[in-house]
Structures are given as C-alpha cells and as structure tokens.
C-alpha cells in the first residue's frame, strides 16, 4: 500500500486577494479546519498553511484514502461557504515529490511575493505546530515539515537571501543600525508630517528611540503625527535648536528650496559637539544641502541613495535564486527518497504481520477443527502460546526492518545520492520480502505537478 502526498491551495500568483481572503483560515478557523479535514478524510495527515499570500492544505496518507484534488477543493469551498466556480479556477495542486519541492520552495521564500522575506519560515513553523497540537500530523507530516523548516534555514544561511532590506523605509532602519548602537538614548527628529515620514517612523518604531520630535509648518499636522507615534510636536521656527538635540533626522517636507543649508548645519554640528548624526532626507526636492554629507560625523542619505541600496539588495537576493534551487532540488530528492523509504518500511512491517498472523490463524483453526474436544481454557492457552511464538520469531526480523528506516539511501553498498529515476528498495527489505514471500518491491509512481 503506497502513500501519497498532496498539496492544494491558492497563492498570490494563482488567485486575487479577494479569493485568498475568502479561503483564509484565520483565527479559530484554522483549528476547526484541521478537525474538519480529519473528519472528512479519515486516516490522513493534514497541515494548513494560511498567510496573506497563500492558503494551502498539505495532505499525506495511504494512496487509497488520500483525497483527490477535486474532493479537497470541494471541501475548501464548502468549509468557507464559497461557490465552487468562484475558487476552482484558482486552485493549484502538487502531488508526491512535487509537494516536497513546493513546500521547500515556500519555506525558503522562493515562492513569496517578496523574495527572501523572513516571515514565511515562521509561518510554516506555526502551521506545523498547530497541526501537531490538533494531532493531525503523524510520521510523514513530521518528517516533511521538519525537513522544510531545516531547508528554509539552510537556504537562507547558504545564499544570504534574507540579507538586506527591499523597501526604502526598512533600508533606512538598517542604515540607522549601522550608525548607532543603541536608540533608547537617541532623539529622532521628523521634519514634515507627510506619508513618507509616517512610513519611516513605523519602521523606526522597532528601534525604540528615546524621544521623537515632530516639526511641521502646520502645527496641527505635527501634533496629530506626534500623538500617533507617541512623540512631541515642536515648533518649526526653532528648527535649529531641534537639529542640535537630534541624532537621527528624517526630513520629508514638500519645500521647494533646501530647508537646511550647509552653513546652517555646520553651525548646528558645532553646537552638537560633532556628535554622530544620521540624516534621512527622503524629501523631493531635497531638504538638506548635499554637501552636509561631506561632514565627518554626518551620514546623509537621500531617497535615491536608499532606493539604490534597496535595488542592490534585491539584485543580491536574485543572485541567490539559482544556488537556492540547487539546494532545494538536492534536498527534495533526498527527502522524497526518505519518505518513500519510510513508507516501504511501514509496508513491509504491515505485510509481515498480516501474513504471519494469517498463517497462525489458519493453523489454529485447523487444530481446533481436528480437536473439537479441547476445552475453552486449553484453546486460550494454545492461542496465547502461538501468539508468543509468533512474536518471538518475528522480533528480530521486525527490529532489522525498523533499523533500515534510519538508513534511507539503501544500505552501505548503495550510492549515497538518492536516485530519482529508479528508486530501489533497501536490500534488507528485499531480503525480508523474499524470505517471507511478501511479493516484489512496487516502484513508486512518477510525481506529477498539475497546474
């Protein structure tokens, strides 16, 4: 009895946000969904991965009980109360080895909207943890998801795909971290109360700056922004004084002329006793004279500098795609071989038990038919004795077969790289099959990916 893997769902490529939202398993729905899946398709393992950009159900189980993709699609539509036709055109599914490769690419963030983003690995981990809590994963699910989390980490570590930020605001935060060590003793000054200032502050909030000053020609706007960010609105007329107090300056005004000239800032820097300063001038046209960046202890970044750095980071991440795919291909083959191997071991153990049990039962029935005068107590004693004998005879073969589970590449004499073309059973499994007449090794199906 072979075991199959199935993954079915929608992602940011296959479905618009409205469909993804409709199929999302958020809040209590996730646990309820796992329970409902286990009830609807008993004997199978399930994990649900539900994020902003994808909703996927991963299923593993014996080939004769695992749901068909259409059945699982029907379940999703029914569970979420969606019409069949609203979601079916958007569903994508993968089978067997395709499931392994897809999950590895997902956890390595190659399938993410933002290449190399770090959240997805945590989301895969959470999905697996939830399935463990609900008891909807067993041997195959454990192996598959533990490997996926490991591969996700490995790809990030080997390719550095998670390094460097891709948005202007998050690059600004990275630059701030490269200039300053601590932020609890720093003052952030925001000049202008526009959207860009808000966006940058949202990212800078994670640094927990000691004090936030917000200044704007329109005092009301400054006060609203200050309330939003727990800062202090300060008068624009005293900009010189605020610049002296600030360590990190974010400028986002819509002024047509530079707000701070070189000479002005030179005086400010003297008054600041030449402390380190980081200026993020994200206004267009620029608010700070570019020559200010030449001052020794002043780092001046304008919006183009931040964009260029984000672009370089993006290119750097793209360079990591090919090495990541090589790692994933290798790991997918190894994991699939391992899963197949686990299945073989399980199948041999089940066949061995059922065949020997059938022989024992047949012989007991023949004995009891030939000796009808045996008392009930004698029959029970003979039955117990035969069971003990069976267990004693099978103890070593069972232990040997189980030991094979830890050696997925087929024994010491087999090649160490798992073959994807012609998967072979472990020699010991073949020997057990042959000795106990369990039949030949059934070659697994070639994996399919159905778009």
């Amino acid at each position, binding site marked *: 009895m072979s075991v199959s893997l199935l993954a079915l769902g929608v992602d940011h490529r296959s479905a618009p946000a409205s469909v993804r939202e409709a199929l999302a398993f958020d809040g209590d729905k996730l646990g309820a969904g796992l329970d409902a899946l286990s009830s609807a398709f008993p004997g199978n393992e399930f994990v649900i991965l539900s994020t902003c950009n994808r909703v996927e159900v991963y299923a593993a189980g014996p080939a004769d009980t695992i749901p068909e993709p259409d059945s699982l699609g029907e379940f999703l539509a029914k569970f979420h109360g969606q019409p069949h036709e609203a979601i079916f055109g958007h569903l994508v599914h993968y089978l067997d080895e395709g499931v392994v490769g897809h999950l590895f690419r997902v956890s390595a963030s190659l399938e993410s909207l933002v290449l190399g983003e770090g959240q997805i690995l945590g989301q895969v981990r959470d999905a697996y943890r939830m399935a463990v809590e609900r008891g909807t994963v067993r041997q195959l699910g454990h192996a598959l998801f533990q490997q996926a989390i490991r591969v996700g980490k490995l790809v990030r570590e080997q390719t550095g795909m998670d390094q460097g930020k891709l948005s202007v605001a998050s690059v600004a935060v990275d630059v701030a*971290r490269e200039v300053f060590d601590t932020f609890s003793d720093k003052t952030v000054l925001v000049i202008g109360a526009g959207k860009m200032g808000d966006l940058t502050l949202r990212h800078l909030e994670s640094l927990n700056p000691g004090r936030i000053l917000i200044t704007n020609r329109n005092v009301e706007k400054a006060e609203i922004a200050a309330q939003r960010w727990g800062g202090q609105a300060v008068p624009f007329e005293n900009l010189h004084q605020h610049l002296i107090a600030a360590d990190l300056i974010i400028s986002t005004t819509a002024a047509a002329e530079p707000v701070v000239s070189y000479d002005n800032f030179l005086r400010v820097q003297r008054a600041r006793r030449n402390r380190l300063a980081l200026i993020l001038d994200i206004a267009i046209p620029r608010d700070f004279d570019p020559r200010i960046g030449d001052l020794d202890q002043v780092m001046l970044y304008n919006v183009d500098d931040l964009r260029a750095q984000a672009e370089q980071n993006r290119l750097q991440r793209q360079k990591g795609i090919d090495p990541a795919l090589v790692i994933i291909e290798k790991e997918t083959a190894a994991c699939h071989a391992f899963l197949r191997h686990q299945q073989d071991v399980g199948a041999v153990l089940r066949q061995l038990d059922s065949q020997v049990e059938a022989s024992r039962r047949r012989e007991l029935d023949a004995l009891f038919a030939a000796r009808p005068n045996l008392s009930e107590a004698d029959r029970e004693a003979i039955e117990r004795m035969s069971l003990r004998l069976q267990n004693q005879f099978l103890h070593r073969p069972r232990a040997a077969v189980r030991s094979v589970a830890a050696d997925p590449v087929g024994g010491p004499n087999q090649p160490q790289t798992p073959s994807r073309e012609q998967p072979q059973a472990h020699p010991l499994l073949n020997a057990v099959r042959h000795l106990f007449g369990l039949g030949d090794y059934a070659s697994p199906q070639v994996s399919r990916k159905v778009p």
Partner: protein
Amino acid sequence: MDRLTVLCFAGTYGLALIAELARFWVRGAARWYTTIGLTLLAWLVQTAYLVNLGLDRHTIPVTTAFESGMVLSWMVGLIGLYLMAHSTRHTAVGLFVLPLVIGLATVAAWWAPRESDWQHWGGVTAFWGTVHGIFLMAGAVFSCIAFAAGLMYLAQSHRLKTKKPPRIGLALPSLEQSERVNRGAITLAFPLLTFGLVIGVILGVLTHRQHGGPIMVTTAPLSWTDPKVVSMIITWGVFAVLLHARFRPAMRGRSMMMLSIIAFAFLVFTWVGVTALKLPTTHNVRRVMSAPATDAESSPVPEGAVTP
C-alpha cells in the same frame, strides 16, 4: 625550536583567519564555529607556551620585548575571541583582530629582542622592571584595541559615506560602537603608558650604575636623543593628543581614528622597529666588565652573553 613553537599557534591563528576570510564564500554556521574553535585552540596553545615560558624563567613573562609581544598578542587574542563569540555571526570582528594577533606574535618572534637588562638585576630593580613591563604591555593591549576599533570605524564610515550596501556576511560594528570602544581604549591606554614610561625613566636613571659582587654590571646611560626614547615620547605625545581629542569635538570621528592608527604604528616602532632597523639605541643593552672598573673602561658585549 622556539620559533617553531611560535609557528604552531601563529599557524593555528592563521588557519582561523583563513576560516574567517571564507565568510565571503561560505555562509554556514560551520564556518563560524570553525573560526571560533581554531582561535580558541591557538589561544590555548599560546597560553601553554607562555605558562611554560614563565615557569622556565621563574617570572611573569614581560621582562623582554619578545615576552611582552607574546603576552600582548595573547591578550589581544583573548579579547578578540570574546568579541567574536559575542558578536553576531555576520559581524566580521575576526577579520580585524586575527591579523593583529598574528602580526604581534610574528613580529615578537622574529624581531623583538629576547634579552633584557632587567633580567639580570635582582630585588627592587627587577620588581620595578617587571612593573614597567606590565604597565607598558597593558597600555599596548588597549592601543591594539583602539587600533582595531579605529580600522573598523574607518571601514564602516567609508562604506556608509559611499552609500554601498553591506556585503553579505561582512557586517561591521556600528560607528557608535567602534567610536565608543576606541575612546574607552585610549582613555585606559594613556595612563598605563604614562606610568610605564615614568617607571622606565626612573629605572633608567637609578640603575645607570649598580654594583654586583666582583662584577660590575651597568646599563648604558639612556640619552633623551636615543631613538627608542624619542619614539616612545612621540607615542606618548600622540596618545596625549588622542586623550585631549576626547574633549575636542572637532577632532571626533575620522581624525581620532587616524590618530589611533598612527599611535599604534609608533608603539610598534618603539617596541621592535628601533631594534629591527638597528638604530643606535642603548635601551636594554648590557655591559659587563671586571671590577673595579670605570665607565670609561666598560666595553659592550653582545646580547645574551654569559657573564663570568
């Protein structure tokens, strides 16, 4: 044989440096653990070597320029190991500290004098000679830290000024952190070097002429124009300027880091450069003569000569 032993741990530090350089191509955790492991191994071997040296000579191994250099590299190695272990794996502290450790050990082994007049004095002079060595060595440790922090600051500052994104796996400490370490190291280095220098000057004057049984051993008089004295005074002067720069806002940042590097260069020159370049110095030169004798009759003997 001695150099061979030094080669053992310097070579292990070298392997650690190679593992550290591999950060440009290898990004796994194994590389980081290899670097830390090799650095620790090298440091342990060096510790054993220094313990052996101390037991052999029955004193703390800071009495010669060679021993001071070895202890200096050992202490910088320990601080570097601590910084490497406590930084994130992406932070390239080892790239700055390991070459320094290797450089100090190599320079000490190949160019630093292995004999000192202090070794041949007894009692109070030997004690103060050791104190002189310890103070100078401690000052040198902090100068090395200031030097490494200065280099890291300059590299980080240059990268930020040119708006280049950080290379993967090659993160540096923040400018603020490097500046703080540099400033702290200079603040500690200056008084230590000053005390060491003052004790050295006093010892130089007091031990100018001492008698020992039938043999009179004397150090050659140290002149203020002696290259070693001049370079040490310049080093001290640079450190004084550095300390002063702490309170001069205009000198913060690059200027201070450049001065730290210059100060370190002078320190290395004073320590081994004068001897390596064979400049005419009387510091640490022993003269042995028969008693009774006068200074005029004394004749210099090569270093390490056995006194009758």
